[in-house]
């Protein structure tokens, strides 16, 4: 219709785990793309639900299905699929997202009109909430993308369903770090950004449903685990930015205090406060850790509630 079989082959990678009810929408929105020259690699990360049968209902020769016998999480599942990909361009879909039908065509055009130094093209998206909708992404947010601020700032723009990457850029940057549990995409984007440039299409090209898909997203228990690895791998990035480093150390401390060990939390708070003694949140958390894990959870809940009341 629009492009037929023209244009480069795009390999679309979709890791999934026990989302059989959402999966058909995610798959259909890839197969209906106006840029039809694609292969869709669904990596079933050891689902125990109906996933194999649901994927089987799609009679499309462009669909490839791989099953991992053990659950290895999204980063490893994506790496398996990158190894199988045949296209020079790689896109990622999630099982709780819906692409608009022109997404690939717009991003392919963006990469093709840019020069070879551009390795990754991002785009805006719409986040659907129970009664509202939010547009994530703007030229300003893209221009001010700064990995030194950590995975919480500008994170929405970095989410993998927004990526169209050159396979070469992914391979040269060294693939996803499979140890990571929630910030694998952010950490990988950081490494890609050190070797290539990014481009951005300022139009919402996919929908993310917070109503159904929000749970995996805010996995705060994994923050301390992931942030440790990030600080270890990329510590040099914050050499001259002690305050930003302290803010990231605080994230480790809070995750430790809420989910794991108060002793560890205090250790990270001391570090953070040594770098930035004026961090009031860190002092408050330190006070909380003196009362044990329960205290911190209660304080966090109270703080969120107070903020919610003020926002109303």
């Amino acid at each position: 219709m629009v492009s037929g079989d023209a244009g480069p082959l795009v390999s679309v990678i979709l890791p999934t785990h026990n989302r059989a009810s959402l999966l058909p929408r995610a798959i259909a929105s890839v197969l209906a793309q106006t840029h039809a020259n694609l292969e869709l690699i669904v990596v079933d990360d050891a689902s125990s639900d109906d996933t194999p049968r649901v994927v089987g209902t799609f009679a499309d020769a462009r669909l490839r299905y791989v099953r991992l016998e053990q659950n290895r999480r999204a980063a490893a599942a994506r790496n398996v699929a990158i190894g199988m990909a045949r296209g020079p361009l790689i896109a990622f879909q999630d099982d709780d997202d819906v692409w608009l039908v022109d997404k690939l065509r717009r991003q392919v055009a963006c990469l093709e009109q840019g020069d070879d130094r551009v390795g990754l093209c991002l785009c805006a998206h719409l986040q659907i909430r129970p009664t509202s909708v939010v547009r994530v992404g703007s030229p300003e947010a893209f221009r001010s993308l700064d990995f030194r601020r950590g995975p919480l700032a500008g994170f929405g723009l970095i989410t993998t369903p927004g990526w169209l990457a050159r396979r070469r850029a992914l391979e040269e940057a060294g693939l996803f770090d499979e140890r990571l549990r929630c910030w694998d995409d952010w950490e990988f984007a950081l490494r890609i950004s050190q070797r290539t440039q990014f481009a951005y299409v300022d139009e919402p090209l996919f929908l993310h449903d917070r109503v159904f898909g929000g749970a995996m997203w805010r996995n705060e228990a994994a923050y301390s685990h992931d942030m440790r690895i990030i600080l270890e791998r990329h510590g040099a990035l914050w050499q001259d930015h002690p305050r930003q480093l302290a803010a990231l150390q605080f994230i480790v401390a809070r995750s430790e205090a809420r989910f794991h060990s108060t002793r560890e939390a205090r250790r990270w708070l001391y570090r953070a406060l040594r770098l930035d003694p004026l961090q009031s949140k860190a002092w408050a958390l330190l006070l909380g850790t003196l009362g044990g894990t329960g205290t911190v959870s209660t304080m966090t809940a109270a703080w969120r509630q107070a903020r919610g009341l003020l926002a109303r």
Partner: protein
Amino acid sequence: MSAEPGMDGGAPRVSVVLPTFNRAAVLPVAMRSVLAQSFTDLELIVVDDGSTEDIRGLVQASGDPRVRYLRQERRGVAAARNAGVAAARGAYLAFQDSDDEWLLDKLQRQLEAIAPTDPDHMVLCGLLRVRGRSVSRYPARIPPSGRISHAQVLSYPFAYVQTWLVPRTALLAEGGFDESMRNWSDWEMLIRLSRRLAVHAIAEPLVVSVQLPDSLTVVNPAWIPAMEHILSKHAGHLANDPAAAADLRYAYARLLLAAGRLPDARAVLLRNLVRRPWHWRSAAVAGLSLGGRGLLERALGNPR
């Protein structure tokens, strides 16, 4: 995924009418999102409303036997939709616009929402409107029952015809869209339909409407004659529904205010208050209007 398309000469279950005047650049996306629906037993009728661009060529390029092409001299969108409806063979009608995109399970979800025991009702769905940097979700509020009352239809002058699934017989029985209207013919149609049959809504957005940032009209002056036409055309049944009539006249007053017609707006509000003194929104706005335009604009922003 669903039923097989009716290519054996039998009528399809759903006819989708897509009127277009030019817009060749965006039309393929609008068409693709219909033809790639998970519910496949449909026909897509593209009504070319006197375009100067090659719409016929685009339609042929789709290569899908379920697409039909109609051409008329430029007669406006209401007439184009009626021409499409006249050619339609499906039991249900849906409408697409040239710059909109349906999510791929739209028709399937809407058909599932039609109760087999009461097939003669209408199902709307949610819509995401993207206008440059601003995004919004329609309808803002759906009652838990999912049923949209006639009064609600009357009080909200935005129909979003792209979200409808309506029995063809009901639309034909009402005589189709009012071709004398250049704006809001869809809303006027919905007012008539909602008197005839039950209107249900799926809250989930199944349509994405992308409008160019340059169409950022907050209030279109052409809406005033459209509103006047509706008030006079429906005067008869509005007389039996004073609450709805008051809401509608209030909306009319807000349009007049936005156009800077302060005395006319005051007259409409006063008439409202004479008949229904407890219509507090009329009272509030009438009070504010005494403070002049500056106060009104600060207090109300733009009507919408």
